[in-house]
């Protein structure tokens, strides 16, 4: 299904008589759309177009939220980190190099904003899951117990391992991307993922054996 397109006015995107150009930007996650001209948007945003930056926000806010959430833990803090991150990114646009992927550059900034927030908060907390959330488990009692065990296991994990396992297993980032986002070597991201998975598996394994 084709997503609705949106025309964004970009100042200075064309040379010659007309100094304005329209770049077609499509909503993310549609199947048959052309790739949005992210580079053009980033350059236009760097040249002062807030419309272009708004389009970049639209393109990246969901994944950027996931990055922030994997680090800060709660929805509320993830929102704060996301807003801080986008603000920092906007102010740092003159340091963005067009030869790099805007997403990677942005996620690193958002991750740093989230890390700053956790340092200020000192303690990482977790949201209570809403009771109305659709559960993938047949037995509600078992699901509640599994969630409780998962929360306990997450609380004992080193925060970086927790971020890595969420970024990899929930969001689908690969090791190299995670390394870039968190500012760690790819091998460290891989090792963190293994340790986190083993710890989470152990904590739920005990529950399975008890039953």
């Amino acid at each position, binding site marked *: 299904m084709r997503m609705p397109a949106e025309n964004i006015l970009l100042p200075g995107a064309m040379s010659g008589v007309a100094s304005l150009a329209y770049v077609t930007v499509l909503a993310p996650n549609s199947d048959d759309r052309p790739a949005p001209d992210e580079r053009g948007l980033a350059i236009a945003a760097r040249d002062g177009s807030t419309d272009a930056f*708004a389009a970049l926000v639209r393109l990246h806010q969901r994944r950027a939220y996931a990055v922030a959430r*994997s680090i800060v833990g709660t929805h509320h803090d993830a929102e704060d980190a996301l*807003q801080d991150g986008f603000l920092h990114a*906007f102010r740092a646009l003159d340091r963005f190099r067009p030869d790099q992927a805007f997403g990677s550059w942005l996620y690193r900034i958002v991750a740093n904003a989230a890390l700053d927030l956790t340092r200020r908060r000192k303690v990482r907390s977790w949201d209570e899951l809403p009771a109305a959330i659709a559960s993938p488990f047949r037995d509600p009692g078992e699901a509640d117990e599994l969630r409780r065990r998962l929360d306990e296991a*997450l609380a004992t994990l080193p925060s970086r391992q927790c971020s890595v396992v969420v970024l990899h297993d*929930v969001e689908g980032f690969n090791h190299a991307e995670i390394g870039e986002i968190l500012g760690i070597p790819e091998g460290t991201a891989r090792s963190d993922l293994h340790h986190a998975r083993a710890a*989470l598996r152990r904590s*739920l394994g005990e529950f399975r054996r008890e039953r």
Partner: protein
Amino acid sequence: MTDERSEFRADETVTRLLRERFAPPADDSYWHALEVRIMAGIAGADHDAWWQPFGGWVRTGMFAAAASLLLTAMSLRWAGSADAQTLYQAVAASPVETLPVASEGGSASAREATLEYLITH
């Protein structure tokens, strides 16, 4: 290869629980509202920071103001002492001492002239 070890592979139940816990809001209106908030925050920060390009000049301006205040104070003080010095010199170099001499000298020679006239006549 370590990736093949079962303890390092993703556990389906754990992954499902993690996805449930970290699921982002699904409502499109939430994302639209968040985008509006983000852009409003940027617009606000941009407006507040209109003077920031001049931020580097603030310190220079403060130094310049302090230096000019100091120079003004010093020149006023110097001007005050110079005035006092000038006044003193004006008083000290006053021609008062020559005036009595002239008058006294004038009356002495007049007396001598009278005395000389009386003696010779």
